[in-house]
């Protein structure tokens, strides 16, 4: 297992559950045992929960695995097969599960500038949480889910928050224009300023810390249209890229992550890929899709491990349509399916103005996606009826 987070842990569990009894090595470059990322922008950032509550392993769980933590994989040798580590060690294996996830994209030109953050890891979250503790103005670059959640958490902590989004409507990719607009209207409801359709030119690095003038600290976010938004803290929520650089030249086909089949197999026998780094083939769409959601990282490893153990002969059930959730401003947002394939969106329950709504996306009359805002009961009902669809 390369990558010791949700997908790697889920693969380790699946191996044991499916009867694999041999040696299991989990390699992860973070020093931490597997922890849960979704709370990093929500309850953990808010200070409502501590680090112990982030643990993804149950207290009495024992997978009989060797954990090599703080160890970065640098190469995969398909001939032996083996995984090489940054410290020179080599781990021989009969099968390899690639679960190296994704890393936050950074804003070019802001490297080394104090006060500019990304949020992907526990260490990122510790830094951001410490800095938000001293108050001030937060500018979030990117109106996607992580940006919106940090804006929501920070505004509840009393910060003055501005969100800058390059697209005309935030979240239009995952939710479509209409519902992206409904969900992102939550910002204004809670006094958070949302600037759309404007790019970011850079971050002014002449800010001051509370202890006096400090060079190399964020002072303002500079927009394409010439505006400057004063900032004490900046969060770049500009997406993530798959961590697959270590596989260059290994023979494992790469294309927006690890290119794999509908069962998780890669171009190299005995090697499967799962989680945020994996670009799975979707037979219905006839295309590959890289899905960066928690539930995919938890469920797909069952399939990939069955593929690995059976040498590709297993034909497990196809997984359910992708599902994710997001918590913003006390509103529970849930989404399942693929919005991009829809030709209509209708409100089935509630009303957008009440921020309590159930919207169903249809294609040729069949439900292909569903969005709920504070509608958990109806959401599950519709989720069960989704037609898998080409999108």
């Amino acid at each position, binding site marked *: 297992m390369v990558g010791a987070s949700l997908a790697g842990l889920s693969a380790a*569990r699946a191996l044991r559950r499916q009867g694999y009894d041999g040696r299991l090595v989990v390699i992860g470059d973070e020093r931490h045992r597997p922890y*849960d990322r*979704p709370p990093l922008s929500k309850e953990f950032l808010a200070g409502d929960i501590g680090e112990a509550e982030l*643990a*993804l*392993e*149950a*207290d009495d769980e024992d997978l009989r695995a060797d954990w090599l933590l703080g160890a970065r994989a640098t190469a995969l040798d398909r001939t032996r097969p083996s995984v090489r580590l940054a410290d020179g060690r080599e781990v021989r294996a009969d099968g390899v599960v690639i679960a190296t996830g994704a890393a936050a994209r950074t804003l070019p030109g802001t490297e080394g500038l104090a006060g500019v953050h990304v949020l992907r890891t526990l260490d990122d979250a510790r830094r951001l949480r410490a800095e938000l503790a001293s108050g001030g103005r937060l500018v979030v670059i990117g109106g996607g889910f992580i940006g919106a959640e940090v804006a929501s958490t920070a505004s509840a902590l009393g910060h003055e928050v501005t969100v800058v989004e390059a697209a005309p409507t935030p979240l239009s990719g995952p939710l479509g224009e209409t519902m992206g607009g409904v969900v992102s209207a939550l910002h204004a409801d809670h006094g958070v300023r949302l600037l759309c359709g404007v790019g970011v030119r850079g971050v002014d690095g002449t800010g001051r810390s509370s202890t006096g003038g400090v060079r190399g600290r964020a002072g303002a976010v500079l927009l394409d249209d010439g505006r400057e938004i004063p900032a004490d803290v900046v969060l770049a929520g500009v997406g993530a890229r798959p961590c697959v650089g270590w596989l260059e030249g290994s023979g494992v086909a790469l294309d927006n992550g690890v290119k794999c089949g509908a069962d998780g197999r890669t171009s190299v026998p005995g090697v499967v890929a799962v989680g945020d780094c994996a670009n799975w083939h979707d037979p219905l769409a006839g295309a590959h899709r890289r899905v960066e959601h*928690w*539930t995919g990282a*938890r*469920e797909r490893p069952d399939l990939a491990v069955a593929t690995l153990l059976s040498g590709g002969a297993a034909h497990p059930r196809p997984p359910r349509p992708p599902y994710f*959730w997001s918590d913003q401003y006390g509103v*529970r947002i*849930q989404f399942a399916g693929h919005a991009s394939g829809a030709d209509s969106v209708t409100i089935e329950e509630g009303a957008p103005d009440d921020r309590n709504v159930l919207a169903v996306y249809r294609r040729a009359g069949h439900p292909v996606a569903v969005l709920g805002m504070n509608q*958990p*009961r109806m*959401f*599950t009902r519709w*989720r*069960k009826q989704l037609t898998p669809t080409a999108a």
Partner: protein
Amino acid sequence: MIPACRLADLPRGEAFRLDSDPPVSVFHTDAGEVFAIDDTCTHQDASLADGWLEDCWVECPLHASKFDLRTGAVDAPPAKRPVRTHEVVIEDGMIYVQLSTAAPNLPACVAARLAGAGG
């Protein structure tokens, strides 16, 4: 024993939530068995009656931890503690629930709210 609902009114694959304190849910599985467990997930404030019922398991509608309806056991985090199970009695087509005397495993946020409501 608390009366829940008539068996005929609870189709297979469906759940019924009792507004007890804390709430309890009754599940009618596809195989025709009836179980009762605490309705609130042990991770956060989610109603398991809204969850995804499959065989003898209900999957939390929010973050997908699964609970065994027979024992209350949880398969994997984020939920870490089991839910409480209750005895079910069916008499003359009516489903009754005998509430467990064990302490519930409510998530911290819900436990605090209930404690507050109780004074």
